[in-house]
């Protein structure tokens, strides 16, 4: 079995060739196509931007429904100068990062604790499932009633949204740790604490990273919903503000910056993941 794994991924390392003389993929058309991919993606972008600029006027769509691309760029400049775009963006990004960090920390701690106590996991699992299904963003009005129009409601919504995928992923990983690895550590007379830090925890890292990747994108959603509900700061607030003024370009621009924040967070997590999971051979794409 071990051999078949090595044989199925010929790019793992040249050393494998000693026992598995796997043929490298034939060069040619395949490689040319792969190198052209970024160019094609870029062409699609240019096409869409071009359509955005010229199609609305050509079809006589009014600016308050779909503004032209140049309107969006102009509005971005105005927001930067007059609406304090930087301050709102920094606020949203900070809240997203803070909520993500706290939610991830809590999710990880609860995931590991429940993973180590199967009894509690069984007792609590129906409620975990219910809470996981409940739409967390719908709690936002509740938190506003409790805490008022400040940073707490959006922070708590973000923590809740991030918490579950990370906790559930870790729980799953803890359940599926190879029993033989645990037995090996037991046979070496290792304590429960040693088994956790040397086997269970490192074995859960791939699932933890997958949970973090999901959490990073959800964090931006959590903060945005919190900001849409009330308050006077953040990109979510700019969206409701722009809506009130029928300033469609402002709404589009705020969404654009929100997406950028989400992408940046995702990139950071993905970069950490690549470093942390360097020991897993990369699959062919």
């Amino acid at each position, binding site marked *: *079995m*071990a*051999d078949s794994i*090595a044989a199925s991924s010929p790019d*793992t*390392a040249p*050393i*494998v060739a*000693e*026992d*598995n003389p796997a043929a490298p993929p034939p060069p040619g058309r395949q490689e040319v196509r792969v190198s052209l991919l970024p160019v094609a993606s870029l062409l699609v972008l240019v096409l869409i931007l071009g359509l955005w600029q010229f199609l609305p006027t050509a079809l006589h769509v009014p600016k308050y429904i779909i503004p032209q691309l140049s309107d969006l760029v102009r509005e971005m400049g105005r927001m930067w100068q007059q609406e304090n775009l930087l301050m709102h963006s920094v606020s949203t990004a900070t809240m997203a990062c803070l909520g993500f960090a706290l939610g991830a920390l809590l999710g990880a701690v609860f995931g590991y604790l429940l993973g180590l106590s199967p009894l509690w996991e069984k007792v609590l699992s129906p409620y975990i499932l219910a809470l996981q299904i409940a739409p967390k963003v719908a709690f936002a009005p509740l938190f506003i009633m409790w805490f008022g129009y400040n940073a707490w409601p959006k922070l708590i919504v973000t923590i809740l949204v991030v918490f579950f995928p990370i906790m559930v992923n870790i729980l799953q990983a803890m359940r599926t740790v*190879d029993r*033989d*690895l645990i*037995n*090996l550590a*037991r*046979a*070496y*007379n*290792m*304590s429960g604490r*040693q088994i956790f830090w*040397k*086997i269970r925890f*490192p074995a859960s*890292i791939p699932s933890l990273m997958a949970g973090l990747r999901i959490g990073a994108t959800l964090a931006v959603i959590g903060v945005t919903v919190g900001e849409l509900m009330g308050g006077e700061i953040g990109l979510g607030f700019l969206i409701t503000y722009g809506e009130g003024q029928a300033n469609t370009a402002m709404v589009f621009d705020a969404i654009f910056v929100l997406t950028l924040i989400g992408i940046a967070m995702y990139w950071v997590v993905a970069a950490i993941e690549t470093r942390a999971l360097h*020991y*897993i*051979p990369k699959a062919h794409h």
Partner: protein
Amino acid sequence: MSLAVPTLQLDGVTRRFPASNGKGVFTAIEKLSFSVRHGEFVSVVGPSGCGKSTILNLVAGLDHPSEGDVRLSGEIVTGPSSHVGFMLQKDLLLPWRTILHNVEFGLEARNFTPTMRRERAFRELRRCRLTEFADRYPYQLSGGQRQRAALARTLAIEPELVLLDEPFSALDAQTKLVLQRSFAQTIATSGVTTLLITHDLSEAVTMSDRILVMSERPGRIVEEIDVGLPDRENPMARQAMPRAHEIMAHLFNALHLDERIEA
């Protein structure tokens, strides 16, 4: 340690499990008695489901007998001990550790300084001819190299007894032959007492001093064969000896392989 006391001794060992349907019990092994002398290489062969893995768990201290005693150098086994090293069909290398750190793994439960751990690990890597792979990760090694690394890890704790549970059965036929010779040499130079659990008759004959043949469940020892061949450190040479073929033919009959219809 006196050489008169066997390294491993099973005395009337029975192990019963609750049946999987919740009713009654099934007996995995029954009144099993055998011993392994210091430095000896003993194989246990038998049909699948004869309780070979139960023996492994009992000797490793991961499980307890329902009746009877398991003794290591005279002392009753009550739990996992640092005197037994075991190896399975799966190499059980930790994918996030380098080969060197994998070999050090078993030493981390002991009061070793990092320098002592490293020296011991390198000694075993040299013995298993893996020194140049010390800083590689398991995925960068072939199946055979990974099993050698697992043996290095097993020997690093200097066990009195090594348990091998079908360590070659996941490998292709050629890698298997090469690895059997490699293991035989390594075990011969380290002088460690070895219990090999296998279903491969030729493997049992070419590698061991003595073979225990088990019956179908509940597992009992139905025959004991003294191999009595030279060159224990070279299974390939033994493979060519006429007596090896006689023993294999005998085992084939003892296990009634020709009469069995279901695999």
